[in-house]
């Protein structure tokens, strides 16, 4: 009798823990480590000047999540927002800056990527497997105290050299790069137009979870890129369609800004030069 009670007791505990684990798995992707990469990039095809941004790679047991520090800070502001109409100008004046609004989830076991980005009010996502074919070389160097080996690949119209370390057995890295037998600590294209380099890696005190938006539009990469291109070419049209009203105090300023915007679009130097 007592043995039966004990068995039932342990069974209940086991089932409870399994349920908790399943609930946690559905609730979000938990990450325990944070890597910071310094990205140095050339935003324009015609102007050689370079910009820098800090990019974050959150590392969990099955997933990594890649986004800019600025994007992460903006998301944090949204999570902690107060329900008030006040502070419109002051909140926006202090908005963290970033040129990169995407979030990239990398399923480590199979290098499947889920790319997420908002276009005005719509959350989009698409799946991709970059199918990176790596050539591993014998060259070695140390980055942030980790012994790294060199590897080369091609992706989306660029050739890349990467340095990865098997001391961190996570098959992932910045942006959509992964699939090597260790974490990529540094990667750059042959033209040095996009260069990611690890600056810090640490365990997170309180694990961070990333959740899916309930109203994400799941689509294909080419469809998303078409939507994005249409929006970037005529953002005011899309805003009007969404019910947003914009009033410039000086129309000549509006014309000047739109002209500069069109020039920037022509000169844009994205990380993916080929998207098919």
């Amino acid at each position, binding site marked *: 009798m007592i043995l039966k009670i004990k068995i039932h007791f342990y069974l209940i505990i086991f089932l409870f823990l399994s349920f908790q684990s399943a609930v946690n798995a559905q609730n979000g992707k938990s990450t325990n480590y944070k890597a910071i990469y310094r990205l140095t990039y050339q935003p324009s095809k015609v102007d050689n000047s370079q910009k820098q941004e800090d990019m974050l790679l959150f590392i969990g047991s099955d997933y990594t999540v890649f986004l800019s520090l600025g994007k992460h800070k*903006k998301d944090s*502001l*949204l999570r902690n*927002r107060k329900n008030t*109409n006040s502070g*419109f*100008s002051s*909140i*926006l*004046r202090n*908005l963290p800056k970033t040129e990169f*609004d995407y979030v990239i989830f990398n399923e480590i076991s199979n290098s499947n990527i889920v790319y997420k980005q*908002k276009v*005005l*009010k719509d959350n989009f996502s698409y799946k991709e497997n970059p199918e990176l074919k790596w050539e591993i070389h014998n060259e070695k160097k140390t980055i942030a105290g980790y012994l790294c080996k060199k590897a080369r690949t091609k992706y989306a119209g660029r050739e890349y050299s990467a340095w990865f370390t098997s001391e961190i057995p996570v098959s992932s890295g910045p942006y959509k790069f992964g699939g090597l037998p260790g974490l990529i600590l540094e990667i750059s294209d042959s033209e040095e137009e996009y260069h990611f380099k690890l600056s810090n890696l640490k365990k997170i005190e309180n694990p961070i979870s990333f959740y899916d938006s309930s109203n994400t539009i799941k689509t294909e990469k080419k469809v998303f890129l078409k939507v994005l291109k249409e929006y970037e070419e005529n*953002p005011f049209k899309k*805003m009007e369609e*969404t*019910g*947003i*009203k*914009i*009033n*410039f*105090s*000086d129309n000549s*300023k509006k014309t000047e*800004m*739109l002209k*500069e*915007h069109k020039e*920037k679009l022509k000169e844009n130097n994205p990380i993916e030069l080929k998207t098919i």
Partner: protein
Amino acid sequence: MKNLFLTLAFVLGTASTFAGENLVEEVDDCVNVTLSCGVSGCVYVTSVEMLIDHIEFAEAYWCE
């Protein structure tokens, strides 16, 4: 002593002449924005990219 006094007067005079000037290279213009949920305000931007960025955040912050 006299030369020292004149030098100091010149330096202080020059400094005070420029002290009040606004030497900001770019001036952000106010763009009046009314979001889809009716919340409105001024957005201070110097480019379309900045305007897009601010409006997208504002929509997520106040209208979602």
